[in-house]
């Protein structure tokens, strides 16, 4: 087994899906958290990053960048990507959708004008997010009624991404009030022993 080292800021952010993949797969890894406050970032770390950004994954001495590429690589290595090329594509599609939702959140997350931020946030919560969750609820339903997993009949990283989105969307059931199948899947995944243990023991961070 290679030596895995995941390097990111002290937060869930763009590294948490990969951490969940390691935990669900039961594979040990070095969970390196780099601080901006004391000069650790950029420090010597930035130069090691192919695009000057984190997260990066070291597999022995080889580096990979881009959070989704890292997640997909790990998911494939640990048989959490999907059993066929088609299933893998269905999982990728769901991950792309979460990325799109994230992009919408970033539009107002860093908005400095308070009034504009409130307006964008309201639009997101009342229109954009429900629309995106509606699509995902339909996709889940298409998979044998939606009481199992997102893709096929076993856990994939698409399920872990959903469980992770729960935290990014505020950590409450509220956003999923009209998406009972998604809510059910989130509950099942977060209750899986390896995931539950990680969620309760991981560092508590604001992002």
């Amino acid at each position, binding site marked *: 087994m290679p030596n895995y080292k995941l390097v990111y800021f002290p937060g869930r952010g763009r590294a948490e899906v990969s951490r969940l993949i390691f935990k669900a797969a039961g594979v040990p890894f070095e969970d390196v958290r780099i601080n901006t406050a004391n000069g650790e970032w950029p420090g010597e770390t930035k130069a090691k990053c192919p*695009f000057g950004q984190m997260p990066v994954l070291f597999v022995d001495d080889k580096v990979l960048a881009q959070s989704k*590429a890292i997640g997909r690589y790990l998911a494939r290595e640990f048989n959490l990507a999907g059993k066929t090329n088609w299933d893998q*594509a269905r999982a990728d599609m769901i991950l792309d959708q979460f990325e*799109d939702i994230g992009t919408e959140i970033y539009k107002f997350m860093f908005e400095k004008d308070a009034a504009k931020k409130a307006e964008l946030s309201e639009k997101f919560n009342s229109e954009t997010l429900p629309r995106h969750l509606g699509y995902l609820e339909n996709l889940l339903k298409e998979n044998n009624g939606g009481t199992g997993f997102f893709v096929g009949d076993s856990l994939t990283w698409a399920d872990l991404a959903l469980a992770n989105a729960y935290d990014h969307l505020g950590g409450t059931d509220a956003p999923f009030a009209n998406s009972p199948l998604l809510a059910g899947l989130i509950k099942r995944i977060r209750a899986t022993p390896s995931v539950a243990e990680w969620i309760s023991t991981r560092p508590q961070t604001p992002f």
Partner: protein
Amino acid sequence: MPTYKITYFNFRGRAELARLIFAAAGVPYEDLRIEMSRWPVEYKDQCPFGQLPLLEVDGKVLAQSKTIARYLAREFNLAGKDSREQALADMILDHYADIMNEMKVLWLESDAEKKATLLQKFKTETLSKHLGYLETILRQNSGGGGFIVGDSLTWADLMVVDSNDWLGVMFPNPYDNFPLLAGLVKRVREMPQVAEWIAKRPDTPR
């Protein structure tokens, strides 16, 4: 061989990488380009996320342009020879997506003068840095005179070719200061099946 269909607008846009993959692989497909007036009414309901492009494989649908391209690349052995090569190609794809997202913000600027200033700043500061990272990755692959990942054509090389077109919409000759990338674009565009597609594809503004 399954029946393939790509549905998109009459642009290169978010479908062109998939079209280049079909061309490079020599695999036939239906290249459906719909008029804006027929969207959304006629097609939106078929789309898992209400958006195009859409890939149909024997009638089963896939959405999301990056996923579509990756699926096809894997089917046609253009994804990379092992898991690490596939990850490197994915990494390059995500980097181009980041560049495109940053450019979209500039595109939306309505004040013409402000837009011109922003574009110039983006080109000399941001884009230059982003493309520099890719030039380095290419150089690190056996000196950069071959392909960007591994030692044979992958969809990562087609991403570079495609980017030359979409970057070129706002920034003509985007790889002028990046000799290895420029060389790769030239080599791949001259490969027979790619050259044939580029010559015969509809000529669209983007």
